[in-house]
């Protein structure tokens, strides 16, 4: 046998665990392969009756609209092996849900080349197992280098502003090469990586298409990081990254000297971070990020706010900006048990980091908006089953988990359930957050105050004409990121003058009854105001879009382009209030259950009945649902039951929610340039608005949803 083949055979044998332990234990440092994994089963039920995937929210893959019905089971087999003292490998074999309902009968069907009937030909339904997260790690023992990793990772060694986490669908889908090393007695540690760009990490969610000469397969982010920790008092980190998307030069018609590649876009980010904890009373940390983004401007033509490239996670023109944070932590403020964290932050409107985290990381101290109002374009007025986008998302309930702030134009919540965190983009946010915490006896208190101004406060994006001056900024789904009725990855509005304040207070107390009852009460109030167009001369420019959207306009509505010069008439004000209480108890040593009640209210004014969403066209029609009429008061109650049950090797958990509420539509109109409450005359049943003829009466709504899971680890 050839030497190379013999070596490979030995490695494979070792990896498969076939080699006797005694042999493995010799000087090679090898150890038997370890196999471990999990069986994960999920039960979803609800009264939305959607079954386009066994996730509450699955929005972007054709044929997977998310669902609240059905049962399915996943299998994951993980492995790792110390092949030798210098080589370690690992990976996973995993099936995932998609539409693997038990009711599919194991995906059994006659292959028919049809990927729409959830049969044997549809990988979303046929319970296939796929290799995921494979990696090899080499530790050659060199002085200058500690390790080389080749393969898949979540790249968590970097930070969420540069190369962040991007679970989609798996956390370790992104592959690359990582060199790590250290110097100066490990006071300096460095990482150098080439991370392949995922296919969606580009202009218009694409770095090209395989086989179409876009050479997307070699696009990558190069990133280097050096961490210097001379002692326990301070440390500093320097990060530099350069991401580039190339494609073939369309004008190169000869391959005699190879084929020329042009840069479609590139993105540089330089970051400097530091922490100092040498003071007795305070720790501090700071970070500064500078980004530079260049794009081939010919790709999106002349460009316009509502142009072809509007659906893109990155800007359409060159830009650069600074961003950063300053954190001060007072660990004992005057008295025992009282601490205070303060954060000053700025995320520049033109900050671009195409590989920044899109979920599962949080760049700001604030707890942000409430998940229950995130995404969802709730169709409070009609409950129209044909309204596709209103039917997508999670329904009335929104997300129960924490809310995460990311600096990505591709913030994403695909393939999540209602009990998971929800992420949204905070590009343009700037302000301050104060978080005091206080523990006293059996009581724990936490609070927050955040004052948030916006670097995206501008008129016509800082120019004179939105169609020209806003052209660099992607619109995404067309509705600007708001807590209610907005998209979580659309940070740019063409006209904005916004201020948001967040107040939160939480108290926890463990009642010493039986095994103890964990009581919690919370109050949260968010005041979010946006004057939008602030100069009369810009009103026509701002509101010329909707009347031009021929075919989708509400025929009963009479467009009032320019709002008669009323700059107050498009002001948006939202007051979000949440009051929640819960009680949790360890009912048995294995079973913990928590009962939750929450009351949420939004009082919202989204301009007068003459205001159409800026530039919105067909998306505003009630059958499409990228925007809904939401002016009014929305009350929502939630009664929920959370439980977790552990036995050795298995966990059961679940959440059962019942939500009910009421929507009272309010109407406002223009009174000589001032916005005033408009009260429908007796007998009037509906008011014509750009978003449909809105019934004047109150609307009740409710939702039931349930998720129960089982996870067996072995």
């Amino acid at each position, binding site marked *: 046998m050839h030497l190379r083949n013999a070596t490979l055979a030995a490695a494979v044998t070792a990896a498969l665990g076939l080699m006797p332990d005694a042999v493995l234990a010799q000087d090679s440092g090898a150890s038997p392969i370890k196999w*471990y994994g999990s069986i994960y089963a999920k039960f979803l039920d609800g009264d939305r009756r959607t079954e386009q995937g066994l996730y509450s929210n699955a929005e972007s893959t054709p044929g997977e609209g998310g669902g609240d019905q059905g049962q399915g089971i996943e299998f994951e087999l993980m492995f790792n092996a*110390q092949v030798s003292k210098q080589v370690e490998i690992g990976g996973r074999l995993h099936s995932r849900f998609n539409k693997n309902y038990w009711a599919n009968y194991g995906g059994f069907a006659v292959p028919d080349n049809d990927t729409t009937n959830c049969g044997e030909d549809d990988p979303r339904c046929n319970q296939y197992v796929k290799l995921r997260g494979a990696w090899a*790690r080499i*530790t050659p023992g060199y002085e200058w280098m*500690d*390790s080389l990793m080749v393969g898949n*990772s979540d790249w*968590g*060694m*970097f*930070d969420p502003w540069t190369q962040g986490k991007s679970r989609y669908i798996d956390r370790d889908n992104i592959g690359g090469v990582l060199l790590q090393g250290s110097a100066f007695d*490990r006071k300096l*540690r460095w*990482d150098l990586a080439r991370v392949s760009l995922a296919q969606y990490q580009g202009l218009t969610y694409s770095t090209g298409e395989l086989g179409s000469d876009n050479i997307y397969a070699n696009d990558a982010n190069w990133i280097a990081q050096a961490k210097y920790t001379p*002692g*326990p008092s301070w*440390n500093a980190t320097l990060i530099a990254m350069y991401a580039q998307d190339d494609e073939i030069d369309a004008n190169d018609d000869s391959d005699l000297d190879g084929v020329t590649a042009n840069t479609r876009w590139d993105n540089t980010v330089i970051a400097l971070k530091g*922490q100092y*904890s040498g003071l007795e009373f305070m*720790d501090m940390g700071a970070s500064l990020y500078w980004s530079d983004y260049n794009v081939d401007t010919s790709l999106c033509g002349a460009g316009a706010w509502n142009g072809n490239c509007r659906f893109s996670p990155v800007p359409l023109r060159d830009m650069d900006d600074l961003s950063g944070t300053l954190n001060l*932590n007072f*660990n004992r*403020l005057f*008295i*025992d048990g*009282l*601490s205070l964290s303060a954060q000053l932050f700025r995320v520049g409107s033109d900050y671009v980091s195409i590989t920044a985290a899109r979920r599962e*990381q949080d760049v700001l101290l604030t707890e942000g908006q409430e998940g229950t109002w995130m995404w969802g374009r709730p169709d409070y007025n009609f409950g129209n089953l044909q309204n596709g986008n209103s039917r997508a998302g999670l329904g009335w309930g929104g997300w129960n*988990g*924490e809310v995460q702030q990311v600096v990505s134009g591709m913030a994403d919540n695909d393939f999540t359930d209602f009990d998971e*965190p929800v992420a949204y983009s905070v590009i343009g946010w700037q302000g301050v957050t104060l978080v005091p*915490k*206080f*523990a*006293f006896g*059996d009581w724990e208190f936490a*609070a927050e*105050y955040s004052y948030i101004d916006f670097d995206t406060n501008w008129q016509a994006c800082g120019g004179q004409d939105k169609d020209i001056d806003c052209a660099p900024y992607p619109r995404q789904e067309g509705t600007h990121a708001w807590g209610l009725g907005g998209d979580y990855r659309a940070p740019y509005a063409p006209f904005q003058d916004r201020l948001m304040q967040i*107040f939160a*207070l939480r108290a926890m107390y*463990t009642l*010493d009854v039986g*095994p*103890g009852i*964990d009581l919690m009460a919370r*109050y949260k*109030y968010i*005041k979010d105001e946006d004057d939008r167009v602030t100069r009369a001369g810009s009103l026509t420019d701002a509101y010329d879009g909707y009347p031009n959207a021929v075919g989708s306009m509400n025929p009963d509505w009479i467009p009032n382009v320019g709002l008669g010069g009323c700059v107050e008439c498009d002001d948006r004000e939202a007051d979000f*209030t949440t009051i929640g209480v819960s009680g949790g108890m*360890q009912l048995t*040593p*294995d*079973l*913990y259950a928590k009962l939750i009640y929450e009351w949420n209210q939004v009082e919202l004014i989204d301009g007068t009945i003459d205001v159409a969403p800026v530039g919105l066209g067909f998306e505003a029609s009630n059958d499409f649902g990228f925007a809904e009429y939401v002016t009014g008061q929305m009350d929502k109650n939630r009664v929920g039951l959370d439980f*977790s*049950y*552990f*036995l*050795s090797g298995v*966990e059961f958990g679940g959440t059962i929610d019942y939500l009910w509420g009421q929507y009272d539509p309010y109407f406002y109109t223009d009174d000589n340039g001032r916005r005033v409450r408009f009260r429908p005359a007796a007998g009037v049943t509906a008011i014509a608005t750009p978003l449909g003829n809105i019934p004047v009466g109150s609307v009740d709504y409710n939702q039931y949803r349930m998720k129960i899971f089982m996870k067996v680890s072995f």
Partner: protein
Amino acid sequence: MNIKTRVSTCALVALLAAGAASAAGVTFKDPTGDDKGPGTYTYPTDGVYTAGSFDLIEFSVSEGDNPDFKVTVNDRLADPWGMGVGFATQMVFIFIDKDAGKGHTKSLPGLNVDFAQDSGWDKVIILSPQPASRVAAEVKAKAADLSADIVIPRRTVGSGKSISAKVKLDDLGGGDPATWGYQVVVQSNEGFPDKSDLLSRKVNEFEGQHRFGGGNDADCDPHVMDILAGKGEGAAGEAQAQYDMLKYECGADGSSVKRATLTTVRK
């Protein structure tokens, strides 16, 4: 400013104005910068394992029938994994030696340490960000023989730099905590532990994204990042005392030749 804004502001001010007297009890200090186990250990490379987050700097027990056991580390706690209790990466074992010369000399699975004969522990409190019932299930599966002396607080929380939990004195068999000996072992919460580990993170020769480095690939090295040592006063020399206490020897085949042996510290 509208009425809701005013009410919210007042609530925050009231919280800040609240006061409390500090409780007496017993406090131990530990030097900073000794979060290296036996002197060679390094942190995992993932960004969540921030500098100082396993560096024990203080341990205190308050007075009363329901004393607060508080462990302070040299970095602000964070919850990157959404554990919901204010911390995520740390896992702390507080071994209590109530009766010198008696108690267990065997430690908990995964730590790979023993206790000296005159420092045997009688009770151990586990401060974990995992749900109490999960910790209990792990104990039942992996340390059933010691479970009677393992105390899992019903609620463990992290705030600022401190992880704390209240434990009823009765659950510890009564007595005066100020007179007891203690050993505080700082480890890391591992949600996917090895079959032999009690929710703790491994130490290998080379650090990885989610494992400590500077040790041995086999289980002959102590899987411990920081402990109390010396007199528990935080003197610089206590770092070396820790390194000496955690000295170990491995055979060529990865077997243990000499296990690290811990002693408890008392006032």
